[in-house]
């Protein structure tokens, strides 16, 4: 079953990101929300994407821009809360890491 991992904390200050990555399986997706957007430039997340190019990582563009966070990495998919609703229903389940 495909799981949506919702990260709401910065991986620089909490273990939300590492816990998420340790539980991530190939068909899963990651969604960066709230302070989770600070992970756009986190080395562990970038390493995970490099290792698994098919990994889909979404981020709430409004939450990222409010925090002056951006990325040139084309793997990240800019999203709205409307998209989040789509993601919730296109995945089998979700887990929130914060």
């Amino acid at each position, binding site marked *: 079953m495909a799981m949506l991992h*919702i990260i*709401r904390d910065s991986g620089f200050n909490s273990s939300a990101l590492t816990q998420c990555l340790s539980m991530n399986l190939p068909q899963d997706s990651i969604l960066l*929300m*709230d302070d989770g957007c600070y992970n756009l430039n986190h080395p562990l997340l970038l390493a995970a994407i490099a290792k698994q190019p098919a990994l889909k990582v979404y981020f709430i563009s409004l*939450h990222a821009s409010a925090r002056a966070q951006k990325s040139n990495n084309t793997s990240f998919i800019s999203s*709205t*809360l*409307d998209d*989040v*609703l789509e993601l*919730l*229903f296109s995945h089998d*389940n*979700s*887990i*929130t890491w*914060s």
Partner: protein
Amino acid sequence: MQNTLALVVTTPPNSNLTTTAVNLVKAAVEKGVAIVGVFFYQDGVLNAAKHLSIPNDEYQTLQHWQQLNREFDVPLYLCVTAAEKRGLTDELGKNESSNIDQAFTVSGLGELVELTCKAERVVQL
């Protein structure tokens, strides 16, 4: 067929994380996703505190929950055990019977079980 969603909110009203939850519910309502209920647990129960005073120029979390409840019939359920541990009760003295806002339905964890079973998807925020 209409999609159905339940939310569990565990963050307090003075957190921007709660604003995100409010906005997700608003997006769902606009999109036609049926919210079967929002369950407030842990520090999330503080959202129901009716005497919280937040400066006028700051985000009025309670007003947004009230609006979702009043205008869009979004049911708001409060875990009473978690609420009582945080000073919220509907069994106060004679002058005022409750410090819980009336937009919230006082319930228990059994309601969480109901919502979990009823909704196609559940998200914890």
